[in-house]
């Protein structure tokens, strides 16, 4: 019995040792002393006398915010927030203590730096905000579950209209677990109605969109339920050792977004592959894959491979390319020119307000030789009708039926359509082969691994090459666009590497072992300046903008439910330091509305006083 006891003890010890080692890295909190807070005491007493005037001014134009700690302290003082116990942090007007946290996932090093800056600058203005970094799982549980205080996050992506990102920031209705946005649970019926109204405006009606967006922005800027801080970059640094003719801002270079992230292949990543040229005189080398025919990328796959099912959206980051390289969408979207490019569809148009006619391109073949026809497109869309667990099934609330006019023409019929969502899905919904998927059950469609995937795209999945830290794609010699559009992807193979850390990636790209890295490499600005690697812009901000990093505030918690407090917090955040220090000039400060530069025409500058 003694031996049993000893062995159980040993096992428990091993478990606790491993767990202790792994868990010791999370939840680091840093506290900073605010030396300057003492001087603000005098300033706040002076500002308090003008309380009446400022509260009226706060609601008037211009709206918006920028880094200004004095304004932050004034707003706090005017709203009744005072430091009563002398710890240099304000307390609520009713006297209760304020102790808030700002979180981001552990391991996202740039964000960890950013929340350190946020925490320090907020504390300098008197707001007790401490930074914490839980593990990704715990972070998202708190974010979606509504138990966080404030958290950094960046829902939304490059899109052809601002509706997608507003639908994320102001996602509604408010339910127990908010997965798709509006994590702070901001509840404003007028705003939700405006967003629903926006969804029903045609994508081509720029003036119509601007009119609705202007109203949305007025509410957003007055209430500030979340604080847009900076634009995360499309991290892209590339080496010209083996492949050249990358997209840059210089003249005479291609202008496709050089990004291999999931959802970016159809936003320019694939086009970049058609523009690449191999460098002369590169040796094949001794590996199985000849060096001069292989493109090594990193930062595409973020985790281990789990499945090749294009209809499971959450895991596609681990097999980036499943949508885009293997499975394709009816259209592509070029954010740099704001144009929809007909892809699997030859054309698409609204023949009346409730009918969309899509003509499928002829001559496209699946990788097993079968032709791609309107039947495949109809089948894919109808998967959402038959199976409520498919991610686009909510579209069927306003889609009524799909009529196959002939083998290559479809008419999709709607009642009261959300034009914006349908348009966004045209370049995000992958088409799957009907002849292979037709007998699959809902469980197989929504959770199946989809081994030996058959797609229509430029590359095929190389199951033999797949390893624990790499995905391999091999060129599809029968790709339809070679004949139909005269496009040819240059690399015969793409090896997508999951590196163990940023320093490893940096070392590899400097040696020319990685051609394109879409990782965030801190400090890469210096290397770009010295010419060791290249990026889209030769100078700051070096990278294109991908999405907006926003500080989400949990409006169910005091004092975050007070618009004045939120406004003060917005003015206290030193976005300049985030850009210069945390990111070393690799990003740009965001517009207070949060819209990306590519959607600049929808920013109502009059609200910002410009």
């Amino acid at each position, binding site marked *: 019995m003694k031996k049993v006891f000893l062995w*159980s003890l040993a096992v428990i*010890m091993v478990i606790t040792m491993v767990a202790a080692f792994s868990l010791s890295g999370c939840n680091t909190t840093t506290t900073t002393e605010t030396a300057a807070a003492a001087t603000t005491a005098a300033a706040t007493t002076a500002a308090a006398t003008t309380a009446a005037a400022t509260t009226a001014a706060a609601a008037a134009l211009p709206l918006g915010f920028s880094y200004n700690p004095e304004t932050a302290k004034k707003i706090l003082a005017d709203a009744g927030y005072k430091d009563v116990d002398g710890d240099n942090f304000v307390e609520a007007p009713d006297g209760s203590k304020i102790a808030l946290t700002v979180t981001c996932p552990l391991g996202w090093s740039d964000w960890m730096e950013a929340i350190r800056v946020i925490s320090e600058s907020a504390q300098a203005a008197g707001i007790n905000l401490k930074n914490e970094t839980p593990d990704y799982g715990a972070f998202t549980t708190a974010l979606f579950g509504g138990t966080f205080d404030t958290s950094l996050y960046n829902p939304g992506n490059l899109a052809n209209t601002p509706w997608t990102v507003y639908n994320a920031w102001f996602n509604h209705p408010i339910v127990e*677990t908010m997965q798709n946005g509006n994590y702070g649970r901001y509840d404003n019926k007028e705003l939700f109605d405006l967003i629903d109204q926006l969804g029903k405006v045609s994508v081509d009606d720029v003036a119509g969109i601007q009119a609705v967006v202007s109203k949305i922005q007025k509410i957003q800027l007055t209430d500030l339920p979340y604080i847009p801080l900076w634009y995360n970059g499309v991290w892209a640094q590339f080496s010209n050792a083996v492949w050249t003719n990358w997209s840059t801002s210089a003249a005479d270079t291609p202008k496709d977004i050089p990004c291999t992230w999931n959802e970016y292949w159809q936003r320019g990543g694939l086009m970049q592959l058609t523009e690449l040229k191999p460098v002369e005189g590169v040796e094949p080398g001794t590996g199985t894959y000849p060096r001069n025919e292989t493109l090594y990328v990193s930062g595409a796959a973020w985790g281990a491979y789990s499945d090749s099912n294009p209809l499971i959206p959450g895991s596609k980051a*681990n097999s980036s390319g499943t949508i885009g390289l293997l499975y394709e969408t009816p259209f592509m979207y070029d954010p740099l020119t704001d144009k929809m490019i007909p892809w699997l569809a030859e054309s698409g148009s609204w023949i009346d307000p409730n009918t969309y006619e899509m003509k499928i391109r002829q001559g496209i073949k699946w990788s097993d030789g079968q032709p791609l026809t309107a039947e495949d497109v109809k089948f894919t869309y109808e998967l959402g009708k038959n199976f409520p667990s498919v991610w686009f099934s909510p579209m069927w609330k306003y889609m009524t039926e799909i009529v196959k006019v002939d083998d290559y023409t479809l008419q999709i019929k709607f009642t009261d359509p959300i034009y914006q969502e349908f348009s966004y899905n045209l370049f995000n919904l992958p088409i799957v082969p009907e002849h292979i998927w037709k007998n699959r059950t809902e469980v197989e469609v929504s959770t199946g691994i989809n081994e030996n995937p058959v797609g229509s795209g430029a590359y095929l999945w190389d199951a033999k090459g797949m390893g624990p830290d790499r995905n391999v794609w091999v060129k599809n010699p029968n790709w339809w666009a070679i004949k139909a559009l005269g496009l040819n992807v240059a690399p015969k193979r793409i090896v997508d590497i999951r590196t163990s850390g940023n320093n490893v990636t940096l070392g590899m790209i400097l040696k020319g072992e990685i051609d394109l890295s879409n990782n965030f490499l801190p400090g890469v600005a210096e290397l770009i300046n010295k010419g060791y690697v290249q990026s889209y812009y030769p100078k700051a901000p070096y990278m294109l903008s991908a999405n907006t990093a926003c500080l989400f505030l949990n409006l169910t918690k005091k004092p975050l439910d007070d618009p004045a407090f939120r406004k003060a917090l917005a003015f206290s955040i030193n976005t300049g330091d985030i850009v210069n220090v945390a990111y070393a000039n690799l990003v740009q400060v965001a517009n207070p509305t949060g819209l990306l530069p590519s959607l600049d025409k929808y920013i109502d500058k009059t609200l910002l006083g410009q």
Partner: protein
Amino acid sequence: MRRYFGRKIIIYISTFFLAVTIDWAIPRFMPGNPVVNLLSRTALRAESAQAMYSYYTRAFGLDVPVWKQYLNFWNALFHGDLGTSVLLFPQKVATIIMKAVPYDAFLLIPAILLSFYAGNKFGAFAARNKWLDNTILPLGYILTATPYMWLGILLAWSLGIVAGIFPFASAYSFSMVPSFSLAFILDLLHHWFLPFISLFLIGFGGWAIGMRNMIIYELEADYSHYLEALGAPRGLVRKYAFRNAILPQITGLALQLGVIFSGALVTEVVFSYPGIGYWILQAIQNQDYFLLQGCFLFIIIGVLVANFIIDIIYVTVDPRTRIGMQGGSA
């Protein structure tokens, strides 16, 4: 003999049972809901997520009462089904672990065996050689106290980055595909060397010190003096001493197995070597309880099996145990 092994087997089975129960219980009683975690990563709209919630709950067997989950777990275990991973849904945990085990075995078995052999041999030499004693002993103390990951990082930096002789990440080059060609095998060994050597060195230090102390003790025992007095060659005396000294070392090996396994885990993390250690860290960071449970189960089984093998070795090596068993006492 039968009573000895019978007793041993009963102890192992009860240990296995207890350890597996704890292994099963930990994920169940940790905070957090793996289904919510999985759903959050799929980024489904609320309506679609609702439809999937009950499916996922059934898929993970979480819709039955706790005691029934426990019985289902044992049932699945005997069918070789360790559940489905949350992190890599819909991959099965058994699939993920099976792909990782060869790398672990490739790392651990040579490291344990070679460090044991080499450490004991050098320790024996050091016991009677002043020069070796003055070098190996301090070196051994330093090595055995070194944390595995620290030595791993040191080797990765010095031999991998500064000297550039060895690669310090991954199991094989990114341009290689697994095959039985010489090029691939050499590449595999090239990547294997640094994690292996960091496990080997620490084990070597430990065994060397232990053996050196044991040999000194044995060489001062009565039978050694008697043999020397009879004029036996030094080699013969040493051989007998070695045989006696190795016994506590084997016991020590059995006790150290847990430490060595956990050392291998952290070494794999340092070198991104795709063994079980790598998956344990991924599972912890992503709250994938089922993968974590499966990995620990594997370690439990591995340690128990290794212990059992050592028990058998102990019987063959130590004649006192053999005779003691035949005599009816164990």
